[in-house]
């Protein structure tokens, strides 16, 4: 009996000293601590990733108030996802995806944009002396479908705790020549569905970024360069991917060597297409901004708004070809009024560079509506 007690004590002590992260799938319930998942954690002043939690980045990401994002995907051994051309990759039950939102610290106690950081700068962990963690979202594939959990990092940056009701966090962002004080919105659990329930009739959550077209990208991590689709395959996380030459990939929205139109469409697809698609919750508008929608009224060209209300900004067409200043799309992408701004969720600032890209795209269209 005495031996058993000592043994137990030993186990408890071991549990207290943070050892290596133990990634795991939690099949049900709402785990209170991000640490329960074992995907990412704080060790020696760094946010580190578990072995097997594969970091990745997207060709064109969703904008979230200039936050940096460190994304990971983990799957149980021997159960790879199946490649699909258009839909999100078909992940097995047990898949755990995380996305950690953070800002680089600026000199004077404010923060700086983190959205320009590449995987080579974030993929092997984050130095908490230099960055400030905001939240980590977990998307888990359970038997009943995908479930989403938002975890909020504490001020001491030691742990993240489940915050199902979301949160409003004051942030001051410093950019060259300007400073913006704003309220960063951590979505509540129901709002997760606002973007991730991409088929609004089915109301089931889906990953958004984990599609072949977004992941098909050359990256550098720890001095090694690789293609992410190839790496996922090599790790045993993906099967069925065809040859690189036959895959369709989204452009990097910042890549000036690519024409404006495909970059604007990629930006719209990832930022808007999850709602504005023929099956999404914004199908009520008749405006489809997903990559599959061909140019025409459904893409907004010369299209009168349906139920935009004050969101028209006084303009008559979703997109007035040749005239970004007369386009509702531009007005709503720029707006910070909750009753007019688009996307409705997930931003409190305007994505100035994304907006500039959309303006170039619209300005280059042959003008007029007949």
């Amino acid at each position, binding site marked *: 009996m005495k031996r058993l007690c000592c043994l137990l004590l030993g186990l408890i002590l071991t549990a207290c000293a943070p050892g290596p992260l133990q990634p795991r799938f939690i099949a049900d319930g709402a785990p209170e601590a991000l640490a329960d998942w074992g995907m990412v954690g704080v060790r020696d002043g760094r946010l580190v990733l578990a072995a097997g939690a594969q970091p990745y980045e997207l060709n064109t990401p969703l904008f979230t108030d200039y936050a940096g994002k460190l994304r990971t995907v983990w799957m149980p051994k021997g159960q790879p996802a199946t490649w699909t051309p258009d839909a999100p990759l078909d992940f097995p039950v047990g898949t755990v995806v995380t996305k950690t939102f953070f800002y680089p610290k600026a000199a004077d106690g404010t923060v700086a944009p983190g959205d320009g950081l590449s995987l080579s700068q974030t993929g092997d962990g984050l130095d908490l002396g230099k960055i400030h963690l905001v939240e980590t979202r977990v998307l888990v594939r359970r038997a009943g479908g995908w479930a989403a959990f938002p975890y909020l990092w504490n001020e001491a940056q030691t742990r993240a705790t489940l915050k199902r009701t979301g949160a409003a966090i004051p942030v001051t962002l410093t950019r060259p020549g300007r400073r913006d004080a704003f309220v960063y919105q951590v979505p509540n659990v129901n709002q997760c569905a606002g973007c991730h329930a991409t088929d609004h009739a089915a109301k089931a959550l889906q990953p958004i970024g984990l599609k072949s077209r977004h992941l098909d990208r050359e990256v550098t991590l720890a001095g090694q360069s690789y293609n992410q689709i190839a790496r996922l395959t090599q790790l045993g996380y993906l099967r069925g991917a065809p040859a690189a030459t036959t895959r369709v990939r989204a452009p990097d929205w910042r890549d000036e060597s690519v024409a404006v139109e495909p970059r604007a469409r990629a930006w719209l697809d990832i930022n808007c297409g999850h709602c504005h698609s023929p099956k999404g919750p914004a199908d009520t508008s008749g405006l489809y901004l997903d990559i599959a929608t061909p140019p025409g*009224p*459904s893409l907004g060209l010369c299209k009168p708004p349906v139920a935009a209300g004050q969101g028209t900004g006084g303009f008559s067409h979703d997109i007035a070809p040749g005239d970004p200043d007369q386009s509702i799309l531009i007005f709503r992408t720029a707006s910070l*009024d909750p009753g007019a701004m688009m996307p409705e969720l997930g931003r409190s600032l305007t994505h100035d560079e994304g907006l500039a890209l959309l303006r170039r795209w619209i300005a280059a269209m042959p003008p007029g509506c007949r």
Partner: protein
Amino acid sequence: MGQGWRGVLSGLTITGALALAACGQGGGTAVKPNTTYQEQLIQKLIDAKPGDVISIPAGVYAIDRGLSLDADGVTIRGAGMDKTILTFKGQTAGAEGLLVNASDFTIEDLALEDAKGDALKVNEGENIIIRRVRAEWTGGPKTSNGAYGLYPVQVKNLLIEDSVAIGASDAGIYVGQSNNVVVRRNRAEFNVAGIEIENTQNADVYDNLATNNTGGILVFNMPNLKVPGFATRVFRNRVEGNNTGNFGRKGSAVASVPAGTGVIVNANDKVEIFDNDIGGNNTSNVIISSYFSTGYMNKEGVAPTFDPWPEAIYVHDNRFSPGGAKPDGLDLQALRVAMFGLTGSLPDVLWDGYADTKKFKAGKTDPALAICVDNGSAQTLNADGPNKNKSPKLMGDALRCQLAPLPAIAVAAAGPVPAERKVPAPGKP
């Protein structure tokens, strides 16, 4: 671009309506709102399971983020539309006050005030009941108010009853892209559109009061949507004195509605308007119009499958009191003076004159698609829109015809149309 009722036909005179703004009974401002309840309420909405009733006690609650509900089978219940008040005055995020993505949903006995966007949006679901709910912008009609008060869209089997909508910068009660709908005994005041039925099939709109809006009751079809609307009955309503200057944001569909409109049909089909009390609407008690008259028609931006013409519209047995005395805008004013003299009025029914000539049979409108105004001595003015209003003319008995009555709508929660007509009284000024 086509000629707009307001944009071109009229000269956009916003009348003194803004001064009339006082409205409603929103008590929200007098009491200091409870700011701590929001967290509890969000938790309840997240945890909600089918069968749950979320009761919100009497009180005024400040909400600064959009609320949302995703679980089916939930009831949200307050202690009364003047007792349980959610005020969104300080809202910093969220396009709605409350967004519901669920079926078998009931909301009753509470108020949603001053939402930044829509007050209540129910997006896609079946068996939706909105009962004794007040959606109000308490500062009176302003363009900066949220767009829609009560806004179910893409729902099936809908009942909205005994509710109140005030101050929406688009529509107070807006039913979009839905099927099988009853809207009854509601009060809509000081909105751009009081009650709007849009791209909706099979709707009964009865025993409502629509007053002091820009337009009282609208039955519209918009292009580029998956389903066209048809089969709406508008009956036993009081649609009176809808003369508030149009404060809708330019570019929105309702911004094309002239102030002083009672009931207006735009591009919708199979609409029966009967047994209503309609009067004191300074442009026209009834307007029947095509999409061409909104000013938004263009070939590139409107799907070719869209039917812009109002067809099978049947106006009969309404009780009209005088309207049309002071139409919105210089062009309609000029039309009134030219045709009816300085002290004359536009007649009870105004038709823009558009008809789909491709569907004509032997050179005439197919009787099944006709516009029939069979309403005693009520006159219809054909504004001759297709010819840029060159030759407007009174139609005399040319539109006197009958269409088969539309069937009553069966929504289980509503039951049959009660024999007794109960129209709410206007709010206290």
